């Protein structure tokens, strides 16, 4: 009964300049019980606002939110359940552990609100602390602990009431990279143990992909694509999703009579079949740097020129010139070619996308500063 349903959820803000911004635009979504679901998108896309509406910190401008079969926000009926009555767990980016309470008291807080008997509080707090590896710091104050430990307090505090739904608002982005990785596993392990539904908000695509059963990519307040991580990675629906989910090259191209030519004056077509239904005209050829072969062999390759070579830990990166445009290629350390030499490349899995209008990009930057 912990499925989460959002129906036509819309949130509008007035900026200080009296400008109206639609932060979340007609959001329809069902998150299944026990699922780990991520909201992924750049800052300003509305993902945190959506989460805060589910938590009850923001009212809706329109729409409904249901937790299981219980409505918590229905704008048209003016129904609004305050956050403390929604029975959720939540972990914040800033940890939000209370500096005036020690670790035990931080974790005990939700139970004290419930007025549970002392021995039960103690029992449950200690159990939560043992699950988050904090037993030895029971009497310590948060300021004496590291960021990772503080986030563990927040985790312990959110699981102590055994909630069915856990909201995670960029919980890992204040941690250093190594810790971030190990905390991912901890969160996953906790979910397995307690079997709650997770909504995970992040702007980090690898985090979202590693954690989620399903995820959605948001842009400019709208859902762009929903699906399992591999579905999204294999089949991005537009240029934005493609670019957001991994390293990418976008080669400006033009299709003439079904043949695709790079912009900037090459007369040889790129071996690529236009998808069905795409007409001639300008477009983008998207490719991932590790999905391009490079060789000195002319066979089946497209002529290009090596501009720069960077030796890196996990690969060699080549900057390749195709006409006047430049793309990146990641290849194994075995392929060492000199800079300045001519080469041939082969796109293994190229995709065709329509170009984005400049207004969209402008709007994206505007929303980030809001």
């Amino acid at each position, binding site marked *: 009964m912990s499925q989460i349903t959002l129906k036509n959820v819309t949130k509008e803000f007035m900026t200080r300049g009296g400008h109206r911004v639609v932060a979340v635009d007609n959001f329809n979504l069902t998150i299944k019980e026990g699922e780990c679901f991520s909201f992924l998108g750049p800052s300003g896309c509305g993902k945190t606002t959506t989460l805060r509406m589910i938590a009850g*910190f923001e009212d809706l401008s329109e729409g409904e939110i249901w937790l299981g079969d219980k409505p918590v926000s229905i704008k048209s009926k003016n129904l609004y359940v*305050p*956050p403390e009555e929604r029975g959720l*767990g*939540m972990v914040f980016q800033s940890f*939000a552990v209370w*500096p*005036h309470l020690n670790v035990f008291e931080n974790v005990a807080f*939700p139970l004290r609100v419930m007025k549970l008997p002392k021995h039960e509080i103690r029992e449950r707090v200690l159990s939560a602390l043992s699950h988050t590896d904090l037993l030895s710091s029971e009497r310590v104050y948060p300021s004496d602990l590291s960021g990772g430990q503080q986030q563990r307090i927040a985790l312990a505090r959110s699981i102590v009431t055994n909630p069915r739904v856990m909201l995670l608002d960029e919980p890992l982005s204040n941690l250093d990279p190594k810790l971030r990785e190990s905390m991912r596993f901890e969160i996953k392990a906790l979910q397995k143990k307690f079997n709650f539904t997770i909504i995970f908000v992040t702007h980090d695509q690898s985090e979202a992909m590693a954690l989620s059963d399903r995820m959605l990519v948001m842009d400019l307040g709208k859902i762009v694509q929903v699906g399992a991580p591999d579905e999204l990675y294999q089949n991005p629906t537009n240029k934005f999703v493609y670019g957001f989910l991994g390293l990418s090259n976008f080669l400006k191209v033009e299709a003439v009579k079904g043949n695709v030519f790079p912009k900037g004056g090459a007369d040889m077509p790129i071996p690529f079949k236009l998808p069905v239904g795409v007409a001639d005209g300008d477009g983008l050829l998207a490719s991932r740097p590790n999905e391009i072969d490079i060789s000195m062999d002319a066979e089946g390759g497209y002529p290009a020129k090596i501009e720069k070579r960077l030796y890196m830990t996990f690969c060699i990166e080549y900057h390749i010139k195709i006409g006047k445009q430049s793309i990146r290629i990641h290849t194994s350390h075995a392929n060492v070619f000199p800079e300045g030499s001519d080469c041939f490349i082969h796109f293994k899995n190229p995709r065709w996308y329509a170009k984005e209008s400049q207004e969209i990009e402008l709007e994206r930057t505007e929303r980030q500063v809001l």
Partner: protein
Amino acid sequence: MKYFLTHMFQRKSSMGDRRFGLDQGLFILSLVILIVTVLFPILMIVIRTFFKGTQLDWRLFTQVVLAPENLSAIINTVRIAFMVTVFGTLLGLFYAWLIGRSDIPLKGVMKALFTIPYMFPPFFGAMAWSLMLAPRSGYVNKLFMQITGGTSPLLNINTIGGIVFVETCYYFPFVFLQVVSALERMDPTLEESARIAGAGQWYVIRKITLPLVLPAIAAGAMLILISSLSHFGVPAILGFSNNIFTLPTKIYQLINRSAGSFQGIREGASLSILLVVVVVAALYLQRLVLKTGHYDIIKGKSMRPMLIKLRGAKIPMLSISLVSLFVIVVVPLFMIFIVGFLKAYGLPLKLENLTMRNYQYILGQSKMVQDSIVNSLFLSVSSGIITMFLGVMIAYVVIKVKPKGKGFLEILSLLPYSIPGIVLAIGVILVWSGAFGVNLYNTIWIILIAYIARYVSFAMKSASASLEQVHYSLEEAARSCGATHLESLRDITLPLIRPGMVAGFFLIFLPAMRELTTSVLLYGPFTRTLGVAIYAINSEGNTVQASALATVAIGIIVAGNLALRFITKERKGL
């Protein structure tokens, strides 16, 4: 002290690796200035109280302390300060919560109104309330007696309660501003995570919000307590006529009555020590309270906190706030303004009773008033400039040079903060009236020295705040580009803190312009300050002229504040 200095020099030379450079020079200079202006006066008070010649002598002290009239002054002081602190804190908290966490409208207007009591000296308020609620002559009381036909006044402002009321009106912003700023800086997710944990609004306020702003409350409350303990103006204006004395007014009376005789000053010094003991006890209390809570609540994204909906209570709350602010802020200023135009005090407030004569007299004829305006302008500007530079120098030494002994320097510079103005004045008299071969008594210079000592803490604090923003690397980058130490200071550090310095100047200029407590003991026949002139004219019973002069002072203060606001707004561009 000598020991300390030689010791320090030895340490430097024993290190042997550095020349006597600019930094050391600044350190020594700061130290010497602070010792002379701050430490000497305080030491002299102790010495004069406890030593007769070179002989230790407790008799004077015990005699003064145990005198019944002084004992009652102690009790009054503590009682008043305690009540002012309690009421001021409650009032400040109430408004801070309304503005910081509720959805009450007109927040901007209310916040602006709250800064007004900050601008004016509380003794203006005492004068204004006296105009309204003096037992027989106050306008409100007269109106009340007319209506009821009785002879008993509505309220008598010349009581302990009256003093508490007026001081509360002027000191509650200490708590208000501290708490509002703490609430604004507080990470909203601290409260949100409690809501998610199942706690309702009031539970969150009790268990999370209040404990987290407790340090701010305590800091504000202690500021009120210390200010009230050392406060002179209000009890002087409201208490004298009814024989209600506090320690500062008693000290003033002792010195005044003895007409500057040495015995009188000694007695005043003894009482001063008592006052300092009370203040230090309060400061100690503050440290005890603050020790428990020192944590960082400023982090996280800047998100709007969830505002609590007042719903039905919105209009009543707004009315209460606006009416009380109106009574506390607007009414007193209006009274002073209107009475300044009256032909004589006590005349009904009607158009035909108004005149410009008071202004003509004080601005055109009274040499004393003209002198006082010139004196105050001179003192405020010069002490503002000197102290501001002194503050920058000390802050630079403490923050950037960090010599051994910087702790001592810091304590010295912050000491005047906790020394009541009236006590400082006595110390300055003891040092600068010939005891060390320099006699500045009755000159304007002795007041200047006292102002510098009094405001050096302000300057030091404000300069520290701006210097801490200037990262080491900025100066180091200049050095690495080939600038000398002096050049990097002159071309990089000073320009960067210039806006802070200008603001710092005004933070001294404005209170100095209305200063009363210190000047009232130090002024000579030709060195009255604006505050002293208003106070003197008022105590002579020339209420209308005092009000007119107070209106002039209000004008100057408002102009200064507007200038300050303009400058701090421009700050970003500088």
